[in-house]
């Protein structure tokens, strides 16, 4: 059995999480529920749960405050439940922390619970929460860290500038780092491509996305992008203009 706590300022939200967990995830017992941060931290400290369903925004703070107030003394896994994720999407995704959107659909809930259950059972690292809080407190995306769950079960925490480019590799994504290291992430290339789209990255073709700072030269006629490392990648003619525009107008 996995002991869980639900923290949400809306009663309806708490009720529906509890209702759904009771219905679809019998292995999870709900130890308690809290309606704000302070209450949540108190109850986490009291119950020491293994899993916490956290609302992002509450009257007296955010889910991050709850994490900051309890971790790393109390090791638990967290699942964010929010109605609107946009604001903190990168922070959460970069640290590979689970996120369920309201209104909650059964599949996402089951998938998240399954993943968490596995992590709890394997005694996985709680490093992602440190990364989460560090990213949260940092306003500059360049300084953010990315926690990549590798296909082999490893976790790699890298800084964003360390990435040279990423490439599709079957259902997974291959990270080419400036150090020459290669990481095959468990997530798909599309997942990262969406995540990086708003940052200083550009998808030069269907399979590859490069970090702009690594571009050495754009060779139009031959349709090549030359990276600082010497790597040459293909780029379609239409995307060359796009890329030029993005490079000359960074924001």
């Amino acid at each position, binding site marked *: 059995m996995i002991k869980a706590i639900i923290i949400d300022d809306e009663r309806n939200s708490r009720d529906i999480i509890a209702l759904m967990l009771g219905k679809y995830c019998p292995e999870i017992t709900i130890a308690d529920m809290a309606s704000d941060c302070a209450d949540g931290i108190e109850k986490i400290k009291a119950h020491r749960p293994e899993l916490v369903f956290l609302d992002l925004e509450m009257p*007296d703070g955010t889910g991050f405050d709850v994490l900051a107030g309890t971790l790393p003394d109390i090791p638990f896994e967290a699942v964010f439940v929010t109605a609107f994720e946009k604001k903190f999407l990168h922070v959460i995704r970069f640290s590979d922390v689970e996120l369920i959107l309201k209104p909650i659909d059964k599949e996402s809930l089951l998938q998240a619970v399954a993943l968490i259950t596995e992590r709890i059972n394997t005694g996985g690292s709680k490093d992602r929460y440190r990364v989460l809080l560090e990213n949260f407190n940092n306003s500059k995306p360049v300084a953010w860290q990315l926690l990549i769950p590798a296909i082999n079960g490893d976790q790699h925490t890298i800084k964003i500038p360390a990435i040279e480019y990423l490439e599709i590799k079957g259902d997974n994504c291959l990270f080419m780092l400036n150090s020459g290291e290669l990481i095959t992430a468990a997530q798909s290339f599309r997942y990262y491509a969406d995540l990086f789209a708003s940052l200083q990255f550009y998808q030069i073709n269907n399979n590859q996305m490069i970090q702009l700072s690594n571009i050495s030269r754009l060779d139009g006629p031959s349709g090549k992008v030359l990276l600082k490392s010497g790597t040459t990648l293909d780029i379609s003619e239409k995307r060359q203009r796009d890329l030029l525009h993005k490079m000359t107008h960074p924001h």
Partner: protein
Amino acid sequence: MKRIILMLLLYCYTAGSFANVDHTPVDTLIADTAFAPANLDLRPFIYVLTADQQHLTPEQAAAMPFTRQENIFHNNPKNNGRVNNCWLRLTIKNQSNKSLSCHLFSGWHDYMYWYSQSPGDKPRQLMQTGLMLDDGGVERWAHYAFAVQVPAGGIRTFYLHVVNKSYNEGPLMPALFSTEAYSAFRDYQLNGFRKEAVVIQVLLGMLLVFFSISVINYIQLPDKSYIYFAVYILGLILFFALRLEDKPYQLSFFHRWPMLKYYWDIPGLLFCFYLMYLLFGNAFLNLTERYPFMERAFTWVAAIVGGLIILCLYFIRIGQYQMPTIIYSYVYFVTLVPLLAVFVALARRSRHHPLVRFFLYGSVCLYLACLGSFLMHVRPLGLLSALGELAAPTILLIGGVLLQAMFFLAGLSYRNKLVHLERTRTQELLIKQLNKNKELQRKLNEQLEELVKEQTTEILRKKQELEEQRKKQLETEYDKKLTEIELKAIRAQINPHFIFNCLNSIQLFVMQRDYEYAQKYLSDFSYLIRKTLDFSRRNFISLADEITYLNTYLGLEKMRFENRMEYEIVVDPVIATAELEIPAMLLQPYVENAVKHGMTNPQQPTGKLSIYFNQVASDMLECVIADNGIGIARSKSLRMLPKHHQSSGMEISQNRAELLNKMYNTEIHIEIIDRSSEDESSSGTIVKILIPQL
């Protein structure tokens, strides 16, 4: 001189009995005891030696033969046509027993020497005198009565050497006077000459006055004609002052230089009546401009006269006294007709130039006076002698001179007046011109001002056009921005959180099988979304719509928060909610904020939200959104989110209000008050939004 002549004539007539009766020549005048001559005509007793050019000593002369020449004697001035150098001899025998003491007088001549000879003795000079010689004071006139003294019973021979270098000779009529008789004669003469002297002195005084006037005038108005006039008057003054030298027994000024009167006799007349007259006329009439020909003639004649004056002076210097007179006669007669012609020419023009009239009158006066004087001389003296007396200042001539001087002076004054008038006119003209200039300047200024005004208007118009263009540009820009903000507003104002939480709630009701509640929730939610989509496309909505919208929204929120909040919307009954318009979606963010913060107050179990719509002025709607939360200040301090994560709903609303203000030139005013800042015991936030009615 005329008077002298007349007097002599008178004497001649009274004493004529002798002369006429006894014409037999007598070698020796016998004076007996009763001899007391009174103007005794000595002609029968006098033998004459005409020496002509010879220079004889008295001894030589005595040795020469004397003859009787009655023709050399004359009672009137006479032009001899030569130098008269003659010796007169008179022998007197005193038969009485007392010595004879008489005076011989024979007129006034240039050089006179008086000798007395005792029998067997050499002639001894007793006296020398003469108009050219004697430089004594007034007493010199006594020298002309030569002493005739013969001791009792003695015989004396007297020689009178007379030299008249100038051809014009005064009366030469020897007469003998006893001492008493001479004294009477002298008194008579003195009286007669005194009158003449007085006339001349008065004339001198007047001329001096004229001279002073012209000098003063010249100082005031430096004009050449004044100088010429002054010099002319000065010349006349000198001339007449020298004429006093000829007046026997009278005081005179220049007796120390007896030759001066000869030097300034004819030359003075030439100088005054011709040279200065011409120069004066030239300058006075401004002939250069008016009659250039006359001016040339005047200048030439003046130059010639100047030359003649020098010539005259030279002749006098070498003793040719007759030459100046001749020259003057010629000049006089030669210029008579031309002058007349000049007068006629001037007279024809005098109508146009008043100055000419003055000049003309003056000139004609002198001209006629001269002519009259001359003619008056012709009859008694004969033509030749009259010519010699041309320069003689008769009373007529003096009158003419005076008249001329007065006319000239008057002319000068008139000229002064003319100059003054002209100056005044010039000044007036100048003033007029200045005024005209001023007028012109004023007009120019006006034109300029008008131009400037026009251009200013043009500039203003262009500026306005530009401003309008800019306004349009700004408007389009605002429109663009507004669209952007509105797009943002849809996302921000209806908080996605709210939407999904609503959906979450509906999901819960469905799961709990509370279908009625779910139905109600869903329809309210749908209404809200529809209205949001609708309003976000419009800038203004009616207050009624806004109130309904807020009611629905707050109802949904209330359901979400399990009735942990209460709300009220109070509308001032005077407000016509359906007609009054307010900017769409302006209030919602503040209401949402109030809901959010109203729930966070640990002291207040129930959040209370009040919305008031008040008509604070005829065209001003006030909207007050008040909650009883922790207040904006504490809420901000409690905010734990890093700055870059903060929400911006209210900020967007504020921006929108500013945009609306700019676009519609209105004054939407938003004020956010923390209640605790006014009253420590209460808490919460009040948002006051003032919306002017367009």
